[in-house]
């Protein structure tokens, strides 16, 4: 059953990669990248169970935190054009 789960996650990964390549907007690509990160964590967990080494879960946890920060950084850059954008600064200046 672990094998079936890993296989279905791989199928889902290939569909997400296809969406990331097709676009058409940058937000589709960000969404696909986020989904690829989620699916990688799940694949890491399943493969860890399949090979009898659940220590892989630590790697998945770390990757999840990095995934969230990466997504937020890319979105902030495309929305404000600046990674150090702060709402308070603009209010002070205007």
């Amino acid at each position, binding site marked *: 059953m672990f094998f079936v789960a890993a296989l*279905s996650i791989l*199928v889902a990964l290939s569909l997400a990669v296809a969406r990331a390549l097709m676009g058409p*907007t940058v937000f589709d690509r960000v969404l696909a990248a986020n989904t690829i990160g989620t699916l990688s964590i799940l694949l890491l967990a*399943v493969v860890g169970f399949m090979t009898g080494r659940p220590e892989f879960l630590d790697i998945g946890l770390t990757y999840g935190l990095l995934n969230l920060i990466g997504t937020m950084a890319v979105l902030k850059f495309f929305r404000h054009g600046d990674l150090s954008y702060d709402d308070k600064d603009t209010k002070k200046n205007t």
Partner: protein
Amino acid sequence: MTEILLYLSWVLIAVGSFFIVIGAFGIFRLPDVFTRIHAAGVIDTVGAAFLLTGLGLNVEFGLVTVKLLMIFLLFFFSSPVATHALAQAALADGIHPVAEDLREVKTVAADKSDKDDV
């Protein structure tokens, strides 16, 4: 008792895998960003939750179960934040939701049928 838990974990893993494939299919097939976010939500909530619960029931209670719970909590909090920011950024960028066009078409059609009745 452990036999029952093992069978339950297989069922949960199968259901989770099913929903993961459904969600990925939605990301591939649906027409615009906002509808695709909806499909991605299926993977992050139902798919991941069922799969991780199934994995957790598959082992004895211990450190592994706690780690699975931590991954589940991470998904529980980070997925809504990411999708909300994504929808906000897409709206701020001026992307028009397809669903609104569909609603307009429907109301126009409804108005027309009302006039026909009169």
